[in-house]
């Protein structure tokens, strides 16, 4: 039995076998063969088998994510029918009397390097598709099992170096009972995704890949942030009990699903959820959210090879608004750039993508892309309670220009005779220190603020949140952050507008008493954090004015922690 510590990414307890997702590397040796016709028929059989597997993946992707997302597998199937590819491999087997896997690998290498040389980022990406297909083919020839999330039909815990957002989006909750990765932190995409799907996860273990083999029994303790490898009988028993307790607590929380969130001193608080795709709405409602505080539209733009058109976007927004049945839905306009690149948009390589062409900056520079989204949003507005939010605003000019574009599209649609909601609330994210400093002015020009803590912390501390070496600077409780939040809330309340928070901090049970004391009106978080937050808030009072005053005078994040501990606010 071994215990590996990591960063707790998503709550819950899972006991299951490990499924290691390794980047494939084969040992392919060149062999002389006697009978090339036999080798060629082996090659053809492998092609048949590969086609069967890809067909299966394609079907499942179609079912879960739609035909558009599955179309990449149509291209993969055609690669297996490609006369040039098959012809070249067959010729090589014949003329050199070599084994099929060797011939296929040589030709694949050649094709991949051909694609990698193309001066077009999108096409260069296709090298990955060719590699994907040929690896499958070679794995079949070598009788090596190829890891594939879509082919998993047993309950497993995924163990990997890291999971990209696109792989994470394909996780099937029915079989994937948890995951553990070498890298990543609490705010990495994988962690956020795991929480919104309710899959227990521990990330940032640094070396789990070295310590775990396929089929090892694992316990993922998503309560403490531990992974236990090949636990003793005793441990397993203990964790079955712990799991039961966790499930009991979940039952208790379920009773709060249809209740409002009111503090002990009678203040109403709005608890809403963050989502990335329309599929998550059901989960949001099941967790008793009072609205959606952040719909990240960028997922509509990811995992594909071209921009989503207006109709497609309209359909997604409409679905979310309708399913939320008049509960408020804050939709954030495209927040791309930073760590989220879209290969087909050909982003220029930047030294500091987080400080570069991202979010509203990209949208104001590429107005056709932005206008398409605004039109889709406006058209969807009459199907529910829509609020539109602009990300990464740093200057009043940016805000005004975005609002003007929205107004322009509104006028165009009205002239076309399209029915729209009478009024749509417009808000902005507070993520840049500039917007904090100018919050009093911004508050006069929007209907609401939403504080994005992940970015606000990284920009305020000037610390890249993806850089593990400086992760100590990611300090939500640093008084600099608390003062910024307080300043924003005061500026907003002076103008009579509400302030929400949609960063990870809003769902953190340590931060909730602090945010309540600072006057936050709305907390938006992963759906699974909502009920615990509601339970906690009903026991707290907002009128902790001393708390606010005293907190804002503390000097370090550690001081804040100590203060909260002394006032027993940590145990809530």
């Amino acid at each position, binding site marked *: 039995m071994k215990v590996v510590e990591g960063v707790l990414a998503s709550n819950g307890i899972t006991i299951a076998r490990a499924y290691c997702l390794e980047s494939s590397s084969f040992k392919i040796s060149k062999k002389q063969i006697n009978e090339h016709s036999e080798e060629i028929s082996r090659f053809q059989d492998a092609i048949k088998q590969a086609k069967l597997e890809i067909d299966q993946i394609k079907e499942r992707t179609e079912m879960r994510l739609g035909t558009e997302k599955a179309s990449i597998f149509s*291209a993969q199937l055609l*690669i297996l029918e*490609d006369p040039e590819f098959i012809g070249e491999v067959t010729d090589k087997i014949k003329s050199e009397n070599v084994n099929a896997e060797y011939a296929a690998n040589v030709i694949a290498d050649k094709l991949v390097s051909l694609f990698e040389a193309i001066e077009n980022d999108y096409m260069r990406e296709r090298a990955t598709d060719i590699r994907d297909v040929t690896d499958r083919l070679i794995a079949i020839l070598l009788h090596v099992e190829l890891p594939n999330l879509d082919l998993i039909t047993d309950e497993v815990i995924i163990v990997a170096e890291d999971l990209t957002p696109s792989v994470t989006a394909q996780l099937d909750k029915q079989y994937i009972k948890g995951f553990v990765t070498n890298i990543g932190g609490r705010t990495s995409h994988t962690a956020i995704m795991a929480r919104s799907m309710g899959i227990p996860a521990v990330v940032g273990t640094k070396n789990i890949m070295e310590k775990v083999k396929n089929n090892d029994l694992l316990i993922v303790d998503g309560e403490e942030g531990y992974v236990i490898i090949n636990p003793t009988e005793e441990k397993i028993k203990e964790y079955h009990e712990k799991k039961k307790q966790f499930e009991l607590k979940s039952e208790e929380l379920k009773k709060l699903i249809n209740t409002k969130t009111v503090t002990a001193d009678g203040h109403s608080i709005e608890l809403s959820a963050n989502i990335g795709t329309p599929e998550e709405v059901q989960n949001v409602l099941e967790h008793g959210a009072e609205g959606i505080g952040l719909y990240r539209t960028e997922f509509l733009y990811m995992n594909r*090879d071209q921009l989503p058109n207006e109709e497609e976007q309209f359909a997604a927004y409409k679905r979310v608004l309708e399913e939320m049945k008049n509960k408020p839905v804050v939709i954030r306009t495209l927040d791309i750039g930073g760590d989220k690149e879209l290969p087909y948009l050909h982003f220029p390589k930047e030294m500091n993508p987080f400080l570069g062409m991202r979010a509203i900056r990209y949208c104001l520079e590429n107005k056709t892309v932005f206008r398409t989204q605004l039109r889709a949003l406006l058209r969807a507005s009459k199907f529910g309670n829509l609020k539109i939010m602009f990300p990464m605003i740093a200057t009043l000019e940016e805000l005004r220009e975005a609002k003007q574009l929205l107004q322009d599209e509104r006028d165009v649609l009205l002239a076309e005779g399209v029915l729209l909601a009478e009024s749509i609330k417009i808000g902005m994210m507070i993520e840049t220190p500039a917007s904090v400093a100018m919050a009093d002015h911004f508050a006069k020009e929007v209907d609401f603020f939403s504080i994005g803590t992940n970015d606000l912390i990284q920009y305020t501390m000037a610390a890249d949140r993806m850089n593990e070496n400086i992760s100590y600077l990611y300090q939500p409780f640093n008084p600099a952050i608390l003062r910024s939040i307080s300043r924003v809330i005061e500026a907003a309340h002076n103008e009579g507008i509400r302030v929400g928070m949609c960063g990870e901090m809003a769902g953190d049970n340590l931060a909730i008493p602090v945010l309540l004391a600072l006057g936050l009106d709305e907390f938006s978080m992963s759906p699974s954090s909502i009920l615990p937050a509601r339970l906690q808030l009903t026991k707290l009072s907002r009128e902790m004015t001393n708390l606010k005053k005293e907190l804002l005078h503390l000097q370090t994040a550690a001081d804040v922690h100590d203060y909260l501990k002394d006032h027993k606010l940590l145990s809530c």
Partner: protein
Amino acid sequence: MEECKFIITDPAGIHARPASILVQTANQFVSNIDIVFRERTANLKSIIGVMALGIPVHAVISIRATGADEESAIKAFSEAISEQKLGDRY
């Protein structure tokens, strides 16, 4: 030989999905079918060949069919390209 020119309007060019459509169309015919872009020619029945041309938006391409069903092949491409909004006749 039948030939027809098209201008690509799909914002991402001939990426995986359009390439699949073109290859699937080509596979329905016995004629030899080529696609030409910037004086480079690829077999339109080979998806790798087509994708390797790296055809971007606004590119002008020509499709050439030679064989028994060359006429109906070219007709089928005109239809597929406009139906799937990949491009227009040039």
